[in-house]
């Protein structure tokens, strides 16, 4: 299962908040709205198989 999450569209800025999850650690649970209006939770997605989360901004 592939999931994309988006949050905006700007480049060339400095990082103000580092991620808090780490490799090998537990994934933090979340629920977000999908394009079809449904709420998708990580737990629900994992029930169907591994999950790829792709974070993007705008079209890149």
């Amino acid at each position: 299962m592939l999931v994309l999450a988006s949050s905006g569209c700007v480049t060339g800025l400095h990082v103000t908040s580092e991620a808090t999850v780490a490799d090998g650690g537990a994934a933090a649970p979340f629920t977000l709205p999908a394009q079809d209006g449904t709420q998708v939770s990580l737990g629900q997605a994992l029930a169907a198989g591994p999950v790829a989360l792709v974070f993007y901004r705008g079209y890149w």
Partner: protein
Amino acid sequence: MDSPEDSRAFAKDYGIAFPLLSDPDGTVSRVYAGVTSDHNTLPGVVIIDRGGRIVFRQVASAKDDRMTTAELLATLDRTLGTSGPGVASAGYAAIDRAQLRVALGGGGVRGSGETRGTVVGSVAGLYPLGRHVLVGPWLGFEPRAAPLEVDAAIVLRLPIWADAGAIELGAAGGWTPWGDAGASASARAGLWFAMSPRWALQLEVSVTTHGLGGRADSSTASAALGVTRLFDVR
């Protein structure tokens, strides 16, 4: 910020079947990828195994650092021990879609011993038979000799620019009911370029003969620029 509504339109255009999630306040982005000073997420990829453990994480700091689709698929296979099929989505590519074309241009009409300038227009509906052939009805408009020309057209095309464009050669034949009434036949050559899965531009030159078998005949040579609306026909 992409709303679920924006994502819906994007998913429809690009034939995306997997969930496109919106993270409006950046909560999830902040946890998984990090956030920049303008509150936007950093682009990144996180792979989570069935047990909910993060088995891969890569966050890009610049546009050129982001993974390509091929790299993402290879990373998924390597990380999860799979060898899945590529994410080809039939019907997404502009060149695979049905077309509604409108074009406008100008040229010259030769008939009754004289040549006159004219405007030309056309509307065509073209259905793809594979990547190299388009067929469909073609309506031509040329006020001097053939106000209306009703044709059936075939376009042979050679995809270029990674299938985002095509070099085209076309032929059409049909009937001109008014003006130089009678059978009509035309040949055209053009260049077509898709700007998105929904829109394309085309440039064409054509030669048309009107009124074959009628009382008067004429030939029109013209060049036209047009726009194509693309439709998914899966």
